[in-house]
């Protein structure tokens, strides 16, 4: 019966626990993800009222947290949720960011929060940049400092890929990549993409060889029949190159 009650609550989509049945942060996150996917699949933006319910439930978990890592995870969820409303729920996002930079600036798991800030809605770009500056200035934790540096470099590359980054960012990127390799090279990416020295060298390759206006570097490999070929086999033609996969 308990399972059925849980299912009924899920259908109603309420993020709040039934009386006496406290929901874990993981459960709130799962309910929220389910709501988010259902909205997008139905071609709708998630509704601000519903997101606010989720934000409040996540906020309760900040105060209920047993340690700093749990509190950071709950605040991370608040930021994630409040960035999903149309235009972004700026005040809630800012509030969570302020708590992170005031209370948890030396907590290593803050690196995961920073890693997720590469894309935010336009209304949150200013607050995001201020948050990162504040964290960089205040933290004494090397993993967090490394994450700020990596996060900023990834954001600039992403903006360049999405249509061009601004001149100030373009000017600071080479220095950031050098710093990543020199100061934080041994730091491991939390998602297993290699250490920061490896990642910085890939990012540098992209910046120096693959921006709009660059002469394309050659590619060599094999096709589905195992036959070797090169990009330069098609020199003289317009080439549309699609990085694709079935997933």
């Amino acid at each position: 019966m308990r399972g059925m009650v849980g299912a009924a609550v899920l259908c109603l989509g309420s993020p709040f626990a039934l009386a006496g049945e406290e929901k874990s942060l993981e459960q709130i996150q799962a309910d929220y993800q389910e709501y988010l996917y259902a909205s997008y699949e139905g071609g709708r933006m998630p509704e601000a009222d519903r997101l606010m319910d989720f934000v409040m439930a996540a906020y309760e978990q900040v105060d209920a947290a047993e340690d700093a890592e749990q509190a950071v995870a709950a605040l991370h969820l608040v930021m994630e949720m409040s960035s999903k409303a149309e235009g972004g729920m700026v005040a809630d996002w800012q509030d969570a960011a302020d708590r992170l930079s005031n209370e948890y600036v030396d907590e290593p798991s803050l690196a995961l929060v920073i890693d997720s800030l590469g894309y935010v809605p336009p209304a949150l770009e200013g607050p995001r940049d201020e948050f990162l500056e504040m964290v960089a200035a205040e933290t004494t934790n090397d993993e967090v400092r490394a994450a700020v540096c990596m996060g900023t470099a990834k954001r600039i590359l992403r903006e360049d890929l999405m249509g061009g980054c601004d001149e100030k960012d373009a000017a600071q990127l080479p220095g950031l990549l050098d710093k990543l390799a020199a100061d934080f090279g041994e730091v491991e990416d939390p998602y297993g993409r290699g250490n920061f020295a490896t990642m910085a060298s890939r990012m540098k390759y992209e910046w120096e060889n693959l921006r709009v206006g660059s002469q394309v570097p050659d590619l060599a490999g094999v096709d589905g029949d195992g036959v070797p070929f090169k990009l330069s086999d098609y020199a003289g033609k317009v080439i549309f190159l699609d990085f694709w996969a079935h997933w």
Partner: protein
Amino acid sequence: MFPHERSLVNNLKDEPFVLLGVNGDSDPEALKKMNEDQDITWRSFANSHDSYDSAISQRWNVNGWPTLYLIDANGKIRNRWLGNPGDQVLDEAIAGLIEEAKGSETEKAGA
């Protein structure tokens, strides 16, 4: 994206244009099966058949799929997109570069 790419390949078969892929599935065998199942007639590199580190997508720092590059007839990168920008944007960008390529061929022929 496949149906539009299929029509690009058909419609532009007599033009100085080629569609090439880098397939992120695991190996050439998986790519061969995908090509057959999905009726993919254009050529793709198997992204990674030696090791994770030698993968083309790693070297090109590709972090999202699809990532698209449009290269002109002189080998210069002219556009790139993270995610499909839509058929119309692609068609116009490709058509513009084909016109450029044919224009410079005519110049050479006339010179």
